[in-house]
């Protein structure tokens, strides 16, 4: 059964508008460094591991900080996802950046004393500008998919 004339016109207008907006859609993904290996970080044992062990497991640090008698190495990775609509006159976008970051702290004999870690690059999401993407459910779902995040 054919659609009534006004409905058909409305459907055509919506389709034309969607088609016109489509070329303005844009997504991008950027990363800095490879994501860190959560399972490898768990191998490090405060009081036992040394700076040499840490470098063997994690590679060269991004940063080395001197803290008086102590020192610290920083490892990090970053992932950004951008979704947007570029209409020249009006542009909108959502930019979401999350990081993997590990700090390892050593005493004056370069023995590991503390490990601080955050793994979140896998939680980065594409989203529309009006949505907030930090729901706990989203994070739990993403964590379940990432290798090495399960205890």
């Amino acid at each position, binding site marked *: 059964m054919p659609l009534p004339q006004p409905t058909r016109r409305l459907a055509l207008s919506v389709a034309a508008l969607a088609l016109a907006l489509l070329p303005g859609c844009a997504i991008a993904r950027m990363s800095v460094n490879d994501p860190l290996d959560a399972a490898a970080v768990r191998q490090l044992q405060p009081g036992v591991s040394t700076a040499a062990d840490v470098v063997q497991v994690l590679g060269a640090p991004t940063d080395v900080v001197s803290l008086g008698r102590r020192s610290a190495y920083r490892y990090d990775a970053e992932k950004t996802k951008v979704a947007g609509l570029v209409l020249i006159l009006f542009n909108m976008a*959502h930019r979401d950046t999350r990081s993997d970051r590990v700090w390892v702290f050593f005493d004056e004999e370069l023995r590991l004393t503390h490990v601080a870690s955050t793994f979140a690059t896998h939680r980065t999401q594409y989203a529309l500008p009006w949505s907030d993407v930090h729901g706990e459910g989203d994070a739990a779902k993403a964590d379940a998919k990432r290798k090495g995040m399960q205890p």
Partner: protein
Amino acid sequence: MRSRRWLALLPVVLGLGSCVQLDWVRERYDEPLPADAAQRIPIGADAAVVFDVLGAPSGVWELAGGAVVLAYANRGGVEFGISGSLSLDDSPVAPSMAWGDEKVRIPGLVVELDPDFRVRDVRRGSARDAAPPRRRPVPVE
């Protein structure tokens, strides 16, 4: 008749894109800190407690006397902006304007550790206000 009037306006609206631009961007950099983070870190606790609650800090630096600062920060909010420019023939001046309403917040939490890596202070606020200045703790000779 009305639709024709709108059609006549279309080139004007499209043409505006060459000199006027509206931007709306929502940005999020790292995850928000737990609301009760400061309450969960008692003074005198070992640094390991801080790392359990907050994870890895954004920045770490040394204060005088071997004390250490752990700084946590994240950024999130909405930026809205409008900008316009106009090129005039035979004019040395190209007027342009931009206006932005930036509601991006950078909340921060700073934990100061004593030389034995025990918590001696916890402060919460905007990242810039909460963090003590970085300076070389030992004078260079």
